[in-house]
């Protein structure tokens, strides 16, 4: 895997978590700008998904197994969109808190992805 991409995604996820956490702290729902932020982070995870599959296609093997690696790739791509939809249904500070929690989960998944790839 591209280490730079994994690190960039983790940092972006943590930034999104802080931003939405701040919105929750100020008692605000998620706004358009937050959704643009979520889109950017999701885009990074999708790029990662493609890069991951290309590298698997080239015959490179993740240290802890391909199944685990693919599962985590898909999970990390789904985390933010799922949390985003839930914040659309919950137009209060708790919607923002959900996205913040989702972004933290994504950051954890990135660390795991890194481990799974490099052992």
């Amino acid at each position: 895997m591209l280490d730079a991409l994994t690190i960039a995604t983790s940092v972006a996820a943590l930034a999104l978590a802080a931003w939405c956490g701040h919105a929750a702290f100020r008692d605000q729902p998620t706004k358009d700008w937050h959704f643009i932020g979520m889109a950017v982070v999701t885009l990074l995870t999708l790029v990662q998904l493609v890069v991951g599959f290309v590298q698997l296609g080239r015959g490179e093997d993740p240290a802890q197994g391909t199944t685990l690696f693919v599962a985590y790739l898909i999970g990390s791509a789904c985390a933010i969109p799922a949390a985003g939809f839930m914040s659309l249904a919950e137009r209060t500070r708790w919607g923002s808190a959900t996205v913040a929690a989702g972004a933290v989960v994504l950051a954890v998944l990135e660390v795991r992805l890194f481990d799974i790839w490099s052992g």
Partner: protein
Amino acid sequence: MTQGSGAGDMTERPQRTKLIGGPGMLLVWLYGVMVVGAVSRSVYQISTEFDRAPLAYSLSAVAALVYAFITYTLVRGGETARKAALACCAAELVGVFVVGTWTLVDPSAFPDATVWSDFGMGYLFIPVLLPLTAIMWLRRSRTSSVTA
């Protein structure tokens, strides 16, 4: 569109306590994450290497079922679901403490980790914190629906 159908649901069943409003939404998200994590983990482990740590993997599967059921009751809402969720959260809490203590006292019984090993340390202690928060939320939901 989603807002329209949500409002329709509420007018059709006004008596059903909504459990996913406000903080409940955050709980559903966290439980959902635990469901995906625990289910995929136990399916993967049981199907590939069950013989290595049968006890640990069976316990993970039980945890996955409990999480799935709690998530379902939270989304469904209503007084019966609220009570069922409360009972499951209590069972979950007991499970976390029993398995957590068990893994510390007798590590040899667990060649591989479960979701509830070491009180859920591998999952940022979320397995311990989640049932506590959920029980607080579920108890509060009853009082607020009575006053409302």
